[in-house]
C-alpha cells in the first residue's frame, strides 16, 4: 500500500506511531503534485513544505495533524507564497499575511504543499474560468472537475494531496466534490474565519475541506472552526467538532427536497441519489418528502446578491497597491479602466457588471433589494423544513461532470450547475456532498444539509451513510 493510499486520519496515525514521517508523506505527495496531469496546482512549495515537515518530524511530540500535507485553494492568502485567485490581475502577487484558517491548520501541524487552481475569483462552476488554464477531471480528462474549487477537488481525487481547502459561495466546494467523487464540506456561514479568503460574495463565502472520507473532513474542520477576532462574522463555536462514528440512523428524519429530485436532474444522478437514500431506511431512519417553495428562486436571487457584493469586493483591484497595472495610462480613468479591463476575465467582468447594475441608482430596489427579500423567504423555507426533519437531502449537482467547453458559451447554462447547492448557501447552512455512486462511470454526489451549527450531527449522519454506501471507486488514471 502506497503512502498516498492512506486517508489523512490514517496518515496522522502512522506518523504519530512513528511508522512513517511527515517528510516521507510530503515527498510522496509532492511527487504526485509535480506530475500534474490535471493542472490541479498553480504553485507548489517543495522546499518550504519539506522544511516544515522536517521541523515537525523533529518535534518531541507530533502536533494533532502530524505534518500531513495539504493543498490550499489559491483564493486563500498565504504569506510569501504566490496567491492569484486564478486571476491575471494578481499575477506575481505574494501576500504579506496568511489567512486565519491556513494559519490554524499550520499551527495544528498541517504542511501546505501548494496552491490549487480555481475559477477566477471563485466565479464559475467548471474551473474553466482560471486565467491560467482549466483543471481536468481525474475521472475523465475531457471533462471539467467542477468549480470554482476545481483544483482542490481534483488534487484530492488524483491523490496529489490527502485533503485540501476550498471555498464555497454557491456550491464551489460541494459541486466539484460531487464531480470528482470525493467528500466536500461547506460549514455553517461563520464557522471558519474568512480572514484571508479573497472575497467573492462576503455574505455567502465560506471555507471548507475536501477529503476522501467524512471523518477526514471533520478532522480538518476541527482544526479550523471557531471565532476569529479578525472576522466579525465568525462564530463562537458552541462545542468541539468530534470525529463522526455513527453506524445507524435510528430515529433520524431525512427530508428529501422534492423540487430537486425531479425535473432538471439527470436520470443517472437521480437514480444514484435514490439508491443512496434507500440506505437511510435500512439504517433505521425515515425519509420524508419536503418542499422548499422558494428554492427555485434561489438561482435568480443568488445571481443578484453574489454579483452585487463582488462588484464592491473586486473594486480594490486597481493596480495601485499590488497586482498588475496597465502600462502607460494617460490619466487616472484610463489607468483604472485598462488595469481592470485587461486584468479580469470575461466571467468576472460579467458579474461585476451585473452586480454594479443591480446596485445602481434606479435599479437597486427592483433587483438587489428584491433579492434580499427573497433570501428571507428562502431562509424561512429551511426553518420550516428543519422543524420537521434533521437533515435535507438532494443531489449535489444536477449532472455528472460535463465536457470541457460545453457550457462556456452560455453563462446561464453554467449557472444552472449550482441550482441544488445555492439555496443552502443563501440560508448560510452547513452542507456536504458525499460520493454516492457512478453514472456512466462518472461520480455522483449526494448533498446533505442541516440547520445552522449542526455540523456534528450532519457529519455523523453523513458518516453512517458513507459507510453504508461504501463508495470506493478510484479514477482509472489515478490508480498506482
Amino acid at each position, binding site marked *: 500500500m502506497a503512502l498516498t493510499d492512506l486517508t489523512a486520519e490514517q496518515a496522522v496515525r502512522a506518523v504519530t506511531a512513528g511508522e512513517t514521517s511527515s517528510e516521507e508523506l510530503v515527498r510522496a505527495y509532492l511527487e504526485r503534485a509535480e506530475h500534474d496531469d490535471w493542472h490541479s496546482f498553480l504553485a507548489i512549495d517543495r522546499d518550504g513544505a519539506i522544511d516544515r515537515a522536517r521541523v515537525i518530524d523533529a518535534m518531541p511530540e507530533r502536533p494533532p495533524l502530524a505534518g500531513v500535507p495539504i493543498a490550499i485553494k489559491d483564493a*486563500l*492568502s498565504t504569506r510569501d507564497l504566490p*496567491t492569484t*485567485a486564478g486571476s491575471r490581475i*494578481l499575477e506575481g*502577487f505574494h*501576500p*504579506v*499575511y496568511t*489567512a486565519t484558517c491556513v494559519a490554524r491548520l499550520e499551527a495544528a501541524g498541517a504542511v501546505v504543499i501548494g496552491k490549487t487552481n480555481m475559477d477566477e475569483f471563485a466565479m464559475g462552476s467548471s474551473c474553466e474560468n482560471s486565467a491560467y488554464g482549466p483543471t481536468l477531471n481525474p475521472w475523465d480528462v475531457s471533462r471539467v472537475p467542477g468549480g470554482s474549487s476545481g483544483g482542490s477537488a481534483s488534487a484530492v481525487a488524483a491523490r496529489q494531496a490527502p485533503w485540501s481547502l476550498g471555498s464555497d459561495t454557491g456550491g464551489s466546494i460541494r459541486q466539484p466534490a460531487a464531480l470528482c467523487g470525493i467528500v466536500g464540506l461547506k460549514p455553517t456561514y461563520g464557522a471558519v474565519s*474568512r*480572514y*484571508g*479568503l*479573497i*472575497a467573492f*460574495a*462576503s*455574505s455567502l463565502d465560506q471555507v471548507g475541506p475536501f477529503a476522501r472520507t467524512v471523518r477526514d473532513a471533520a478532522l480538518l474542520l476541527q482544526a479550523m472552526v471557531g471565532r476569529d*477576532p*479578525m*472576522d*466579525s*462574522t465568525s462564530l463562537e463555536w458552541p462545542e468541539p467538532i468530534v470525529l463522526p462514528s455513527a453506524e445507524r440512523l435510528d430515529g433520524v428524519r431525512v427530508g428529501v427536497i422534492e423540487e430537486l429530485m425531479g425535473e432538471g436532474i439527470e436520470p443517472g444522478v437521480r437514480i444514484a441519489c435514490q439508491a443512496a437514500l434507500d440506505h437511510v431506511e435500512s439504517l433505521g431512519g425515515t425519509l420524508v418528502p419536503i418542499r422548499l417553495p422558494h428554492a427555485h428562486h434561489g438561482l435568480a436571487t443568488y445571481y443578484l446578491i453574489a454579483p*452585487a*457584493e463582488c*462588484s*464592491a469586493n473586486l*473594486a*480594490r*483591484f*486597481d493596480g*495601485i*497597491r*499590488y497586482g498588475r497595472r496597465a502600462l502607460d495610462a494617460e490619466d*487616472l*480613468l484610463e489607468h*483604472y479602466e485598462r488595469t481592470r479591463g485587461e486584468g479580469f476575465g470575461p466571467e468576472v467582468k460579467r458579474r461585476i457588471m451585473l452586480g*454594479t447594475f443591480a*446596485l*445602481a*441608482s434606479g435599479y*437597486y430596489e427592483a433587483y*438587489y433589494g428584491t433579492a434580499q427579500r427573497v433570501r428571507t423567504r428562502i431562509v424561512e423555507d429551511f426553518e420550516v423544513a428543519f422543524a420537521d426533519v434533521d437533515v435535507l437531502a438532494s443531489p449535489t449537482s444536477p449532472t455528472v461532470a460535463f465536457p470541457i467547453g460545453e457550457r462556456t458559451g452560455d453563462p446561464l447554462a453554467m449557472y444552472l450547475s449550482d441550482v441544488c447547492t445555492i439555496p443552502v448557501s443563501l440560508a448560510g447552512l452547513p452542507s456536504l456532498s458525499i460520493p454516492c455512486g457512478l453514472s456512466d462511470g462518472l461520480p455522483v454526489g449526494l448533498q446533505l444539509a442541516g440547520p445552522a451549527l449542526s455540523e456534528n450531527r450532519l457529519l455523523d449522519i453523513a458518516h453512517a451513510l458513507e459507510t453504508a454506501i461504501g463508495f470506493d471507486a478510484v479514477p482509472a488514471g489515478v490508480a498506482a
Partner: protein
Amino acid sequence: MSTTWEAVIGIEIHAQLLTRTKMFCGCELSFGDPPNTHTCPVCLAHPGALPVINREAIRLAIIAGHALGCEISERSVFARKNYFYPDLPKAYQISQYDQPICGPGRFRYLTPDGEQTLGITRAHLEEDAAKLIHLGAEGRRAEAEGSVVDFNRGGTPLLEIVTEPELHTGAAAAAFLKQLRQTLVHLGITDGSMEQGSMRADANISIRPAGTVGLGTKTELKNMNSFTFLERGITAEIARQTALVEGGGRVAQETLHFEPTTGRITSLRSKEQAHDYRYFPEPDLLPVVPDRAWVAEILAALPELPITRRERWMRDLRLTFEDAEVLADPPELGDYFEQVAALAPPKSAANWVRGDLRAQLRERDQEPWQSGVTPDALADIIAMAESREISMPSAKAVLTHVIDHGGAPRDVVAKLGLGAIQDESELMTLVDRLIADNPVQAQQMREGRDKLVGFFVGQAMKATQGRADPARIGELVRERVSAG
C-alpha cells in the same frame, strides 16, 4: 421692484475621533509620521482582509449624539459607499446610509443674543480617506509627475454630522460651528483642529426670495479650514449666487472650492460627474445595537455639557455671556475657574483668571491648570486684594512671584514686605510731606482741579512701593489739601 434674497445654509461636519486606533483595524492613529508606517492588510485593502468595528468609536458617537440632542438609534448599520479614488483603497468607503448611529435632533447652543438651536439631520460613523500627495504641485522634481498615496491617515474614524438647512448667513454658520466644536472638544470626541484637518466643514448653500419657503439649487462649498474662512466662503458664495440670479443666470448644482488667499470660488467639477455611490449594507460587519445599560453608563460618566455649564455660570455665578464663553474653553480652564470661584467671589475669580493670570502665564507659555498657581493660591491673592490687605499692584506682584518661584501668597507678601500700610498716622505723615513737596499741585487742587488727587496717589504709591491703599490715600489727600 427688486427682490431681496435669503440664503439657506446647511453644514456637514467631519470630525476625526480621538480613538487610539483606526475605525476598522488596530493600526495606531498618527500625525506626521513617515508615509505608510501605520498600515496593515486591512487598511491597505489587501485581498482577503476584513474590517472590525472599533468599540470606542461607537462610544464617542453615542456621546456626540447625546450632545447634539439626537436620538441614539436602537439599531444602526454600516454600508459600503462605492467610488474609485486612489485615496480609497477598497474603492468603497465603509460609512452609514439609511441607518445611522444618531438620528434626528436639535443642537442647543449659546450666542451673545441668547440660546439658539439648529436641527441635526443625522450623525454617522465612517472611515477617513488616505492622504494624496501631489508631487508636481510642489514642484519637487520634474520627472516626479503624478501623485503618491500615504495610507497612514486612511481608516481614521470620522463622525459626519449633517445639519438641517436652517442657517442664513456665514456669520451664523461660523457661530454655530464654534459652539459645536467647543462641545465636541469638551467631551473628548475630537481634538477639533481645523488647521490640521481633524475637523472639516462643508456648506450646502442656496438662495431664495426672502419670505418664500422653497429651496433653490444648492452648491456645496468644500473644506474651509477655519471659522473665518467658513464665514468668508459662505458670504462670498451667497454674493456670487445673488449676482448670478440677479443677472438673469441660474445656479448650477456643483461642488465648489473657496480659495482663502484670493477670496475666489472655483468649481471642482471632475471628469466623473455622475456619482452613483451604490450604497448597500456592509456584509462584512454586523448591525450595532447599543445595549441600553451600556448607553446609560456612558452618559452617566459624561462631564457637564459646555452649554449647561455656561448657563449655570451665567445664572448662579452671574457671569456675563462673554466671561462664560471665554472661561468654558478649553474645558480645563473651566475646571480651574470653578475651583477658584468656589473659594473667591465668582466675578473676581473670572476677572483674575481671564485677565492677569492668563496674561502673565501666556508670556511664559503656560496654562493656568498646568501652572504653579493653584486655585487655592489664586483665591488667597484675590482675598487679600479684596480686603485691601495688599494693594492691587502688590497683588499682581505676588502673583508674578508665585508663578516664578512658587510659595504660598501670604508668605510671599511677608517675605517681600508687600503688606499694605495700615497705620493711619504713617499715611498721614506721608500725605502731608507730599503736599509740602508739591505746593503748586496742592494749590491747583484747592482751586478745584480735583483730578490732581491721582497725581498724589501716584506719588504715594511710588514712595511706598505700592504698599499704600490708593483709595485711602485719595481720601486723606482731599482732607489735608482742603485743611491746608
